[in-house]
């Protein structure tokens, strides 16, 4: 009887812990990986098939970014993802202000802090490296 009671308590505790997280485990873990000094602001869930030919980054969205704010863009990939998620941000003049992928070295950064000094609406483009198939999430948070 005592054993069943313990199992029941464990089940309830686990459920309570799970419901306290985002429903998508990838989002929860990615929010956690953004670090303790950051505060969640937004997420972009990206799921793409393999690109038929190399092209512009395919998942496009936009958001306003404000001066005097340090934003952290954290990219996370699901286990079955073929490619790694990358991000590029352009301002309203179409100028690239941030890229999580260094084309010269091929290095992919899992997070990029952006110290914004120009308020405006920015274009965010995500894709998986080399147009590969993948599933991932980009988390935007504010850093203290």
């Amino acid at each position, binding site marked *: 009887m005592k054993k069943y009671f313990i199992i029941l308590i464990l089940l309830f505790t686990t459920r309570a812990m799970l419901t306290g997280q985002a429903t998508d485990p990838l989002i929860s873990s990615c929010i956690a990986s953004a670090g303790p000094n950051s505060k969640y*602001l937004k997420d972009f869930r990206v799921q793409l098939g393999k690109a038929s030919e190399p092209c512009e980054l395919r998942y496009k969205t936009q958001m306003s970014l404000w001066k005097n704010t340090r934003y952290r863009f954290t990219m996370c990939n699901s286990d079955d993802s073929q490619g790694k998620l990358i991000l590029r941000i352009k301002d309203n003049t179409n100028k690239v202000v941030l890229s999580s992928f260094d084309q010269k070295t091929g290095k992919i950064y899992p997070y*990029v802090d952006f110290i914004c000094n120009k308020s405006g609406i920015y274009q965010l483009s995500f894709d998986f490296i080399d147009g590969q198939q993948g599933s991932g999430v980009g988390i935007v*948070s504010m850093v203290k």
Partner: protein
Amino acid sequence: MRGRFFIFLLATVIVFNSCRNTSNSSGEFIFPEADSVPVGEAQKLSAEAIADISKNISSPVEIANLLQFLEVPFSPEYLASSVDANKQNTAFDKALALGILGADLGYLNMYEKTGTSIDILSSIRKLAEGLRVGQFFDFETIKRLSLNKSNLDSLLFLSIDSYTQIDNYLRDDNRGQLSSLMIIGVWIEAQYLATQVVKRYPDQMLKDRIGEQKIILNDLILLAIPYCNRDSQYGDLCRVLQKIKEKYRDIRITYTLGEPISVEKDDGLVIEQTETSVVEMTDEQLTGVIDVTKEIRNKLIITN
């Protein structure tokens, strides 16, 4: 000779005219040429474009974050405590109040003021259920996270995500007008918070943030325009948004150029933008924005 001169003159005119169009975007932010986008044009905006516009509206959490950074203490005076969820009769009232209280929830969450947030959560629940979108708001979990103060990120995620899901659902359910109202409510309340705080704490960063709202004001108006002729409530709202826009008309936002500086840190990258936006706003202009925001926000919550 005369023919060549004519071609040169024509080319010069074309080049200078085309340059005039681009100079505005790089040097100074101005509202689009027309005072307002024609209703017909706004109604043609695709669902995707409207969804994008709604993403541009700044989050109240960002305003609260700035206030915390400036070490402005929390004050319950700024909250829309007079909004009674039981007295919101129309869908218009409910959606607008849902937005207003959503902004207050963001402010409370950031300052971890859990006692008050439980009251606001109950009101949000009633309003959301009244609009048949209660299923997207996980009240019990948000309430529990508010009370135990253990995980601010999960609380922020669930609160923001609930509003995002409501927004998406309303648009998919052909109730885009309610989604627009909710977003407008969020913005007006966050703007009210910022403008009330700046009166007591006239910090330049906060003044700038208020002035910079000019950048998204046109987008906010675009969300409302398709519904301006729907009934008198929508018509009134469109008029007050134009009134706010009028107060912003002579506030200038200019830009200075620069190349970003990148530094690798740990596994990541830190990029500092050296381009800047500069707000030129007189004290009178700021007072105009503060006054019009207070007048409109208070009218909305009293009407509600």
